C-alpha cells in the first residue's frame, strides 16, 4: 500500500497544509484536537472537497485539483469507521454488515463474511438493531461493516473516543487482529498516544494544520519533543518486549526486551505475550557510573548515540543499549556536569513505576 496525500485547505480557524506519503500497515494520524486531522481524513474519504489537493492510493489518483480530477466517495472503496459508528438505524446488524458488501463488485470482494463475524465476535448480534447494542458492540459492527466492503484502505477516526476504558480494551485487540490477520492497510486518527504507540507502524505527527514529522513509529516518537505542550511530555522510546513472569507477591511483571530484563508494576499479561513498552524520555535518569543504593529497578548500560538540543533548559540524549535506543531528557546543566558526549558509556535508570504498556 502506498498512500500519497497533499492538501491545502482553509478552515475558519486553521490553515491546513499537509503533505505526506505512507507505506505503513497502520498509519496513525496523530496530534492534538483541532490540528486538522479531521480535514485530512475526510478529504481522503471524499467527504470534503478541499481547495487544493492530490490524493493517490497505489497509483490511483482520487483527487487532483490541478487537473480537476475528483472521484466521489462511493467509487473509492475506502472503508471509514466513524467515531460515532453511524450504523443505519433502520437495518439489523446483519443488514448493516452486508450494506457495503452489496455495493462491491463480486470480483473485488476479498473479505469473507463468516471470518469477519468470527473475528469481531458478532454472531450473537446479527438479528439485533443498532438501538439495542452497547457502544462497544456498535463500534465492532461499524468496523465489520467497513471491512466487508473489501476496502482498499480502512480509515478509522478515533474509533475508541466515545467508549469507556473497559470498552476500549474490548476493541483494541480487534484492531490489532485486522491489522495483522486481514492485512488491510489502515489510517488511524487519534489524539491518544497510548492507542497510537500500541497500534501504529507509522505515525504522521500533526500540529496546527501541518505535518511535524512522519515515518515509522520508532523514528517519530522521539521527535514528539518538537510538538507543543502535553505531546512533548510524551516523547520517549518504544521497546518491544515479551512477558516472562509475574510475581504476584510483589505485584511485579518481568519482561524480556532488547534492553535486557525489564520490570514493571502490575500484571500486564500471561507469560509469552508480546507487547510494546513506552518509556517517556522525562522518566529516564542517566548516570556515568553503575548506580547503587537506588529504589529504581531497571538499570541499563549503554553508550550515548546522540545529543540533541531541546527547548529551554533541556537536552535530549539518545542512548544505544545493544540494538535498542532509549531517549532521555535531562537538563543541559546535568549533561555538562556529567561531560556527556557521543560514545561515552552511561547507565539509564528507569523506575518500574514509570514503565507502562501503551493503551493502558
Amino acid at each position, binding site marked *: 500500500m502506498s498512500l500519497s496525500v497533499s492538501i491545502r485547505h482553509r478552515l475558519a480557524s486553521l490553515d491546513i497544509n499537509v503533505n505526506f506519503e505512507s507505506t505503513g500497515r497502520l498509519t496513525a494520524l496523530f496530534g492534538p484536537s483541532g490540528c486538522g486531522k479531521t480535514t485530512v481524513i475526510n478529504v481522503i*474519504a*471524499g*467527504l470534503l472537497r478541499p481547495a487544493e489537493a492530490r490524493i493517490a492510493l497505489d497509483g490511483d489518483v482520487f483527487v487532483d485539483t490541478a487537473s480537476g480530477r475528483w472521484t*466521489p*466517495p*462511493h*467509487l*473509492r*472503496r*475506502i*472503508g*471509514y469507521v*466513524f467515531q*460515532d459508528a*453511524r450504523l*443505519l*438505524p*433502520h437495518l439489523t446488524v446483519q443488514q448493516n454488515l452486508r*450494506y*457495503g458488501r*452489496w*455495493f*462491491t463488485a463480486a470480483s473485488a470482494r476479498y473479505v469473507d463474511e463468516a471470518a469477519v463475524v468470527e473475528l469481531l465476535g458478532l454472531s450473537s448480534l446479527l438479528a439485533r*438493531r*443498532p*438501538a439495542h447494542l452497547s457502544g462497544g458492540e456498535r463500534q465492532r459492527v461499524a468496523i465489520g*461493516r*467497513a471491512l466487508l*466492503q473489501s476496502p482498499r484502505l480502512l480509515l478509522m477516526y478515533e474509533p475508541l473516543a466515545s467508549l469507556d476504558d473497559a470498552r476500549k480494551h474490548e476493541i483494541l485487540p480487534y484492531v490489532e487482529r485486522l491489522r495483522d490477520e486481514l492485512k488491510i492497510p489502515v489510517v488511524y486518527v487519534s489524539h491518544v498516544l497510548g492507542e497510537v504507540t500500541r497500534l501504529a507502524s507509522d505515525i504522521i505527527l500533526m500540529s496546527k494544520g501541518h505535518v511535524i514529522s512522519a515515518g515509522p513509529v520508532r523514528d517519530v516518537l522521539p521527535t514528539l519533543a518538537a510538538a507543543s505542550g502535553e505531546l512533548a511530555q510524551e516523547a520517549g522510546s518504544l521497546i518491544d518486549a515479551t512477558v516472562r513472569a509475574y510475581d504476584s507477591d510483589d505485584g511485579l511483571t518481568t519482561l524480556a526486551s532488547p534492553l535486557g530484563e525489564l520490570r514493571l508494576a502490575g500484571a500486564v499479561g500471561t507469560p509469552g505475550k508480546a507487547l510494546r513498552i513506552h518509556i517517556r524520555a522525562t522518566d529516564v535518569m542517566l548516570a556515568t557510573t553503575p548506580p547503587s543504593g537506588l529504589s529504581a529497578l531497571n538499570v541499563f548500560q549503554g553508550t550515548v548515540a546522540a545529543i540533541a538540543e531541546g527547548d529551554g533548559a533541556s537536552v535530549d540524549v539518545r542512548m544505544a543499549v545493544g540494538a535498542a535506543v532509549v531517549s532521555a531528557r535531562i537538563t543541559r546543566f546535568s549533561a555538562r556536569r556529567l561531560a556527556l558526549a557521543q560514545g561515552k558509556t552511561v547507565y539509564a535508570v528507569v523506575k518500574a513505576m514509570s514503565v507502562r504498556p501503551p493503551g493502558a
Partner: protein
Amino acid sequence: MDFFSLSPDEWNAVGLSVKVAAVAMVASLPVAIAVALLLARREFWGKSLLNGVVHLPLVLPPVVTGYVLLLTFGRRGLVGSFLADAFGLVFSFRWTGAALACAVMGFPLMVRAIRLSVEAVDTRLEDAASTLGANPLWVFLTVTLPLTLPGIIAGMILSFAKAMGEFGATITFVSNIPGETQTLPTAIYAYTQVPGGDPQALRLTAISVMISLAALMASEVLARRAGQRIAA
C-alpha cells in the same frame, strides 16, 4: 327504512370521496417528496418564493384556489386546454378535477410533514452510506427515504383527511354533479339545502366521521411502527 342502508346516490358520494382522496394522495406524493427535499436540503434562488407558493392553498380562501384552478385547468385554461388536446386529460367538471383540487389543497400539509422528517435525517448517516459504496440515488433509496417514512406516512394521511373534507375549491372548480364530482362534503351540503334531506345528511356525516377517524388511527399505527424501526 334502516338508518344505515344508503341509497345509490349516497353510495356514489362515499365511493367517489374515497377514490378522489386516494388518487389525490398518491398522485401528489412524488411531487411532495421532491419539493420537500428541495426545501429541506438545497439553497437556491427563489426558495422562499417556492415555499410561499406551496403554502398558498393553506391561507387562501378555498374558493379562490378553486377559481384559479378553473382558470388554468379549465377547458379554456392554458394548462387545461393543452392537457386535453395532448393527452385527453380533462379536469373541469370531472372527478379528476375533484382529485386535482384535493391534491392542491392537501399539498402544503404533505410537504410540511415530509420536510420536517427530511430535516431530522442525520446527513452523517448518508455520508457513511456513500463511503460504503452507495451512489446518491442508492443513498436516497436506502437511507433517506426509509428514515423519512414516518413523515411520509403522516403527510399522506393528512393529505387524505384534507381531501375527504375538501369543499370550497372542489365545488368551485368542478361543481356538484352526483356520480361525477359529488363527494361527501358536497353531497351533505346538497342534502341540507333540500327539504327532508336531514336523514341523508346525518348518515353521510356519520360515515364521514368514521372514515376520517379510521384514517387517523391507521396513520398512528403505521407511524409508530415506522418510528420503532428507526428509533436510535
